[in-house]
């Protein structure tokens, strides 16, 4: 069968459906609220060379980075990945992004003429609520990677279909919540097995040659769609600098600079001028920077091409070594994936807004408001770790207001239902509401942020990783900026203590933590409102 417009569409459907089915299997069998309720996981399939062909629409920050995981597995075991093998990793400098994100990669083989033929890879990534390290939740205010938890370079979790239980035990022993880890890993393994089987079925149905040919064709297809979209962007060089509040150790603002060059159907993204790597934990491994770039490209490309590596072929990304967007090994990265990625996206979109003012929204909240709480639950007499990211204001769009209280850009995790949270943890919600008026005014208003007030029923250690506490999300074209966020501790429920954007603290039962997330920027001048 040759590739034609019809078979292309049929295979596109099929590959996406395989990765979606992996996601369903993972979601339904996972153990932790973080994966099940919040859906902090992703799944994708790859060609035999390790190129990502299709993904299920899960978390943008994972998907652009997963090709690096498959590549790391291939590099670590050159020619030594066999049927039934499964590689596990989380090393941010060897295919990972930050330590809680544990990735599984498995080669998929089919039988042909008595020999086993490699037809691709399946991979999934789940955010594990705790993998050890300095503070519960494993996203600490660290100064080096070793403080952040268990580091897994690519190792074989299974050989020839036999699971290496020792690896599972090693991981569980390094977590504050071992039972949860065991359950989530089992779910990831089950999901990999589903993906493997489904990809084999595609090959049984259409043959290996056709399947491989269509994998290649889909990469070409996404490349064509992307090139066409880039060709519609006016040629030029678009430069932007924006700042992160700080790295959590000092007060120093951290610049991220980008110059995007559009030249016909090619795009060059150059991060030269960005801050050197920081002593604090906000360094973003290169895979994270690539994820943010893929996300931006995918937003600018209107048509629903699969987000695969073909989208990146017309794009060159320059990330100078030793900078915030491509740090040297062993630097702390806990916040790179969750916070720096949001600011990278902000500068990328702000640069594109110069070229495409009628398409790009004003800045959204620009943070994920990571909240990690751990300790010993006195009432249920067991250890607990709770992780949540909190939505905020979406920037106003050309033509319409931004949405309030929603996750934007690099994350799309759900909230933990209040009733589920109180059943599971020694916490009580006092308030969960829109933060009215926090969105920037404009011809179109930025969305409002959120307020989430949590009361502690047991003593606990809290880590907050948040941004846009000093520098506001900018409005565009005369729109007002959104309000920065605030983190406030109400000691004993009333005595206000203002906290930094990035902070670790011990709290007592009866204390209330109030996270108030940033609003989105406005678009256009308020006086132009209809």
């Amino acid at each position: 069968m040759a590739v034609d417009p019809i078979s292309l569409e049929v295979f596109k459907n099929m590959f996406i459906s395989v990765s979606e089915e992996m996601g369903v299997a993972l979601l339904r069998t996972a153990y932790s609220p973080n994966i099940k309720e919040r859906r902090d996981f992703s799944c994708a399939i790859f060609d035999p060379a390790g190129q990502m062909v299709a993904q299920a629409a899960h978390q943008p920050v994972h998907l652009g980075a997963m090709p690096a995981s498959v590549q790391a597995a291939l590099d670590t075991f050159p020619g030594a990945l066999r049927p039934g093998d499964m590689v596990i990793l989380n090393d941010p400098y060897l295919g990972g992004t930050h330590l809680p994100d544990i990735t599984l990669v498995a080669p998929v083989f089919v039988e042909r003429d008595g020999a086993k033929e490699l037809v691709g890879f399946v991979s999934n990534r789940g955010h594990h609520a705790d993998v050890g390290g300095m503070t519960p939740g494993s996203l600490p205010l660290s100064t080096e990677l070793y403080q952040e938890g268990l580091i897994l370079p690519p190792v074989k979790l299974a050989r020839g279909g036999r699971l290496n239980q020792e690896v599972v035990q090693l991981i569980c022993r390094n977590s504050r919540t071992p039972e949860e880890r065991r359950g989530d890993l089992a779910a990831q393994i089950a999901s990999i097995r589903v993906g493997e089987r489904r990809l084999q079925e595609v090959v049984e149905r259409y043959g290996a040659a056709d399947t491989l040919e269509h994998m290649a064709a889909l990469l070409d297809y996404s490349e064509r769609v992307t090139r066409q979209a880039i060709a519609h962007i006016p040629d030029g060089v678009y430069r932007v600098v924006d700042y992160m509040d700080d790295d959590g150790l000092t007060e120093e603002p951290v610049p991220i600079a980008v110059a995007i060059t559009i030249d016909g159907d090619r795009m060059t993204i150059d991060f030269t001028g960005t801050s050197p790597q920081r002593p604090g934990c906000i360094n973003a491994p290169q895979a994270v920077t690539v994820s943010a770039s893929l996300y931006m490209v995918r937003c600018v490309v209107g048509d629903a091409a699969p987000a695969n590596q073909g989208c990146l072929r017309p794009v060159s990304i320059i990330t100078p070594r030793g900078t915030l967007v491509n740090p040297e090994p062993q630097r702390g990265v806990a916040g790179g994936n969750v916070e720096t990625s949001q600011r990278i996206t902000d500068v990328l979109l702000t640069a594109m807004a110069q070229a495409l003012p009628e398409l790009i929204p004003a800045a959204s909240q620009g943070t994920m408001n990571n909240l990690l709480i751990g300790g010993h639950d006195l009432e249920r007499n067991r250890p607990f770790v709770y992780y949540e990211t909190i939505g905020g204001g979406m920037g106003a769009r050309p033509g319409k207001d931004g949405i309030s209280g929603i996750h934007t850009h690099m994350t799309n995790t759900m909230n933990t239902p209040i009733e589920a949270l109180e059943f599971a943890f020694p916490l009580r919600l006092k308030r969960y509401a829109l933060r009215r008026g926090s969105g920037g005014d404009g011809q179109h208003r930025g969305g409002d942020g959120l307020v989430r007030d949590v009361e502690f029923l047991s003593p606990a250690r809290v880590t907050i990783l948040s941004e846009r506490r000093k520098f506001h999300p900018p409005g565009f074209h005369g729109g007002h900026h959104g309000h920065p966020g605030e983190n406030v501790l109400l000691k004993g429920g009333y005595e206000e203590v203002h906290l930094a954007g990035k902070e670790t603290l011990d709290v007592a039962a009866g204390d209330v933590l109030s996270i108030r997330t940033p609003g989105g920027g406005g678009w256009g001048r308020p006086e132009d409102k209809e």
Partner: protein
Amino acid sequence: MTGNSGTSGTVVGIDVGGTFTDIAVLQDGRLTVHKLPSTPANPSEGVQRGIAEIDAGPAEYVHGSTVATNALLEGKGGRTALVTTLGFEDVLEIGRQSRSDLYDLNLERAPALAPWELRFGLPERVDYTGAILEDLTPQAIETLAALLQTAQVDGVAVSFLFSFLNPLHEERLLAALRRLPNPPFISISSQVIPEFREYERTSTVVVNSYVGPIMARYLAELEQSLGRGLRIMQSSGGSITARLAAEQPVRTILSGPAGGVVGAFHTGAQAGYPDIITLDMGGTSTDVSLCPGRIKETTSATLGGYPISVPMIEIHTVGAGGGSIARVDSGGALVVGPESAGADPGPACYGKGEAITVTDANLVLGRLRPAQFLGGRLALDKARAEAIIAGLAGQIGAGIQETALGIIRVVNANMERAIRTISLERGYDPRRFTLVPFGGAGPMHSCELAQELGIPRVLLPTHPGILSALGVAIADVVKDYSRTVMLRGGDIDRARLEEEFHGMEGQAREELGREGLPVERMTARRFLDVRYVGQSFELTIDYPALSRRADLRRSIANSFYQAHLQRFGYADRAEAVEIVNLRLKLELAMEKPSIEPQPLGPADASPALLEQAEVVFREGALPTALYQREGLVPGNRIEGPALILQLDTTIVAPPGWGGAVDPLGNLILEPLSERL
């Protein structure tokens, strides 16, 4: 309600669709069917006219109503207020804080059905054990009542945190608001769905209050003209008295598609095929549902962006239908849908629109016969369809017929994905099922679709067009009850569960007794929603029957492990489980029409043969036999390539497929060889 015996009398099923209102009359075990145009502006008008036309005498009427559905989808519900625990007024708007599309910068969120100025927080709090932390005071209620009076609302929804564990505050507020002069339509979450997860529960009760006033008006009007024997189809596939439906209209919101599944399941089971996949292909979308020997239900559905957590038949919808538009995207792939040409301007062959649709492709391939389409009432312009497809063919560098075949293949791939979602993703192998297509377009695509999925058999009911009306007529009377209990370990004990169920059942029988239903003949079925401790997806299992020896906890765990194995392919038998919800169904079985099996006639179908014509298949243009469905009798054999024409649909039997009419009048098509 003496006529509601469940064993005799006349039952009339009425299904109101966008274009047609279908009526199925069951009298002395015989089924007759009627079709007449709908009156979308005032649906009750068409219903009343239809009933006058059939003149069935004294009868019970069962109605599949889209009034609530349309009010929700078109944003035409009442002015609705929401009352919550203070500090949580915005939960309805925030939802789960996620967005429906990752990359769409122009994304919209469905507007909150209770706008912020109509959302009120009251000081009160219950904790996760059901203990009251803060009392709801009379002063707070008074203040709220005054605000609601000024706000002039049609409906009020109440949803307090953990009200499913302790409904006291919600009930106290309900009683107070009912005493208001001209009270609005009020619903409280502990009565609509006493289950945990505040957003989904709140959304459900708000939808209920939003569509409630409209539904109540509509049903009152209808009941006035039809008398007391009116029942309404629910999304769960059971029917309920009009009065109860008016109280909880949210339970009827997907009643249309539910009727079709009930009708198809009944037809399949009678023919000896209890394991079916239904395929209801309409103009803009296709509904599929998998019935593994029973009709499957879910309690997590979303309509128009609004979660609705009441029991519903598990139906998956995909944006692929006869009106789906085909185009070449910027990367050069041929895509079909989800955009649809709808009924106006409609497919190119209707003579107005320029968009190429699946219907145009079927016409160009000769699979749709212009003269027979809707009995010839709507002229189809084949030349126009060909001319417009030629443009698309030029774009992809293929011939006209090749392009039309491609459109069919792509739309089939979309439907295939939908069927994979409900089968393989849920642990069911489609190769063990029978495909039952209905709706206008389903029978045209079913054999090719079955072939792609390895489904070994397609069952074409005698009247694919009125399956929904039939399903509505034969639906059992069912009322669902649920309660979140959250029990684990030593808390799971027989006495406690018996007491809970006993209490639920007592309340249920009392409520239904007040409706005049013969509760003494209604059976109660008990279920448990169970999950691994701390997990957040529950599986519903049967409540283990009373037995002296069996250890209750072990038998619950075993049923759960089995269900888990089926659903997910594995089960950890060492892991502890917990009971989340208790579910109770009170049912009154209704009479099903027992169609007399006919003796098999000759295999020769030639008396029904209309003509030979050229029809295009993947194998090329082939001389194809055209049969009239009404002329076929049991025993007649058909061999593909063939088309079987009937008033509201056309059945395509491709080359390599064939089969016979069974004694009940169903046409059963199967692949002729193991060529699958």
